[in-house]
């Protein structure tokens, strides 16, 4: 397991950095926000990302993918973080696509993989119900109904849910909330009768939706994978996404850190650059140390996804470590970034606030610090 990008991955990282800086700089994200676009990302940009092959990166060649691995994907997400670029790469590809890859039938794969990879259709994962991410707590009921299923319940914080063509709904077909057994995945088209999708406007101005499923009927063929056995593939798809989200967090944090250090060198008070004050120097140096720790954890998390020798527990442990440490560093550094920018730091004019807001959402998404700390502990003790 290597913790540095290979030559090919580095090349992809450079291409991504160059492309995103030109086509999707932070100013573009600000514009999207000001326009109030419900999708939260630009269609044209997404199309270009698809054309560059990014949506095919993690999938095996047999499914039309590039089999380039999560490490390659991580390089793209880190760049997206640096530029604050919004796209459905995580929701539709890493979450949706991975679930179809890991749990889908041949027919489902044949129908969905090409459309997802080509960006013709977009999927979103409907999982969270409570204020905090907790997959096992899923309560939304799935009951057998004739040949198919009847879905009843609510979903929240569905990333890129507005305008998605279909949802993968995690439902409880057996057992009680809190249990890992008894969860099933269902493919629900956006226009299914009884399904109501409404936007949740959050601080990061991205696309989040809440879903109301009021007696939504789906056919038996809407079931993805085994009835009641969704946990394994769901957990694997979530880990892949957690590692990618951790890379995005890392990119955002790196940008904030670089910007802040630059500000410390140029902002003059008491006739000297404020970066000459030891009180600030030491805090900045600590930020730098935590950024390095986060980078190592993120690289290990990404590498773990590509390592066929790791079992599920080993994979989970490193994914949780990556998300935890990336979130931890992002938390520290985003707070310091605002504080060190002084009064300007709390104005909307500066980009610092945009990063802070996206960081907070990404920290909570797919499990916050407490969630991943707990999960790490579970897998350590299991060994």
């Amino acid at each position: 397991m290597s913790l540095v990008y290979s030559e090919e991955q580095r090349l992809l990282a450079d291409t991504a950095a160059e492309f995103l800086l030109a086509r999707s700089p932070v100013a573009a994200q600000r514009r999207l926000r000001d326009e109030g676009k419900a999708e939260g990302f630009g269609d044209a940009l997404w199309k270009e990302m698809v054309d560059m092959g990014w949506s095919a990166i993690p999938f095996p060649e047999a499914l039309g993918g590039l089999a380039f691995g999560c490490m390659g994907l991580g390089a793209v997400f880190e760049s997206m973080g640096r530029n604050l670029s919004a796209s459905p790469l995580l929701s539709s590809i890493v979450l949706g696509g991975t679930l179809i890859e890991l749990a889908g039938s041949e027919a489902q794969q044949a129908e969905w993989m090409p459309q997802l990879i080509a960006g013709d259709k977009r999927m979103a994962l409907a999982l969270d119900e409570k204020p905090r991410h907790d997959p096992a707590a899923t309560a939304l009921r799935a009951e057998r109904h004739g040949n198919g299923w009847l879905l009843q319940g609510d979903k929240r914080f569905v990333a890129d849910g507005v305008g998605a063509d279909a949802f993968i709904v995690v439902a409880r077909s057996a057992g009680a909330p809190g249990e890992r057994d008894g969860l099933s995945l269902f493919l629900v088209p956006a226009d299914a009768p009884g399904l109501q999708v409404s936007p949740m406007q959050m601080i990061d101005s991205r696309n989040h939706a809440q879903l109301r499923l009021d007696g939504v009927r789906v056919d038996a063929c809407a079931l993805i994978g085994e009835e009641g056995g969704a946990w394994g593939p769901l957990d694997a798809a979530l880990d892949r996404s957690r590692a990618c989200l951790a890379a995005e967090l890392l990119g955002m944090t790196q940008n904030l850190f670089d910007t802040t250090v630059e500000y410390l060198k140029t902002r003059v008070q008491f006739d000297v650059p404020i970066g000459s004050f030891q009180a600030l120097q030491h805090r900045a140096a600590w930020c730098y140390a935590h950024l390095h720790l986060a980078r190592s954890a993120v690289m290990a998390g990404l590498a773990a996804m590509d390592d066929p020798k790791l079992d599920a527990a080993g994979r989970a442990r490193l994914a949780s470590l990556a998300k935890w440490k990336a979130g931890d560093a992002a938390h520290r550094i985003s707070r310091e970034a605002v504080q060190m920018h002084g009064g300007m730091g709390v104005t909307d004019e500066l980009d610092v606030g945009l990063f802070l807001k996206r960081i907070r959402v990404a920290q909570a998404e797919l499990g916050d610090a407490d969630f991943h700390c707990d999960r790490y502990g579970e897998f350590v003790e299991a060994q």
Partner: protein
Amino acid sequence: MSGIDDFRKETRAWLGANCPASMRGPMPDGELVWGGSEVEFKSEDQRLWFERMRDKGWFCPDWPKEYGGGGLSPEQNAVLEAEMRRLKCRPPQINLGIWMLGPVILEFGSEAQKRALLPPMARGEIRWCQGFSEPNAGSDLASLKTSAVDAGDHFVVNGTKIWTSYGDKSDWMYMLVRTDPDASKQQGISLLVVDMKSPGIEARPIDLISGKSSFCQVFFDNVKVPKRQLVGPLNGGWTLAKALLQHERRAMSKFGEFSLPNHVDLLSVAARYLPPADAGTSAEVALRARALAMAMDEHAYTLTAQRMGEEMRARQDVSGLMAIMKLVHSEQEKDKLEVLLDVMGHRALGWEGDAFDSSELALTRAWLGSFAQTIAGGSSEVQLNVIAKRVLGLPEGKQGK
């Protein structure tokens, strides 16, 4: 097959045949072999491993053969290090001379000094100690006062050095002395090597809050040091001191790969002293969460050390990474031991005797010892200054250098 591949094959075979099985794997504290005039071996395997590596010239594999080294090219040396890492071979001996002074003599020493000092060093016959800090020159090392006064064919040294590890057990010392009291701080310093058996030297061990220690204070009372024992230019010692400290950091990080002295597995201690996750009080659950968070940060550090190794091998610039390692590790150790103290409650506060088991007493001492880790070898504050100025390029403040 290229030459380097042959070398790799031969090295692998040689290490496989010559490194005893018990000399592979992490090295517990207390099993270090110190080179010197009196080497203490705790096992026959330790002796074998020491002698075989010595005879091969691999105490200092990349030094020229004429000075007792192995004569390996940087490329071959990297292969040897990689192969030793692969087999988890322990360093055959610990020797500050080889790690820190040797490279400086190679770079700055005279030909006569190289011929006199390096071969015995390379055979592990001399135990070296370091005389840098003084009671009034700690983080501000350049303010040191121990004087060396020109007396014709020798210097006369007066003053005192402190925090000298194993000052009472070492054969020779390399030390910084003030040779020009009128020059500005950094300008009047020179580097001397001194035989610890010289008349007028006394080394007194220092007791710490954690108990007995290897640290000594060393006193110099009109000690005569021949002029041929001046290394580098007169009054030019500061440059050499900086080079030495760089070698120290490199040696420590390399050494860190082989051993984690006093390494305590946080989570196994937590598992021993705390009830399982689902059976504790809310206070115990909170403690467990603190222990986990600490363990995760520690894991991130281990991964960082691994990443630094990989980046070095890929010939990337790791100076930034290197600058954070000591700071992060020592601060984490301190925090970790505080968490363990809370996890173990009164059981971590025993001093000696039968009422506590040995692992508990060891933990108490490790906790008390951890306070020194963020002070010795460049305090955390000095490390932060270095990161801020040299890595981040933040401007110099009014408070001085």
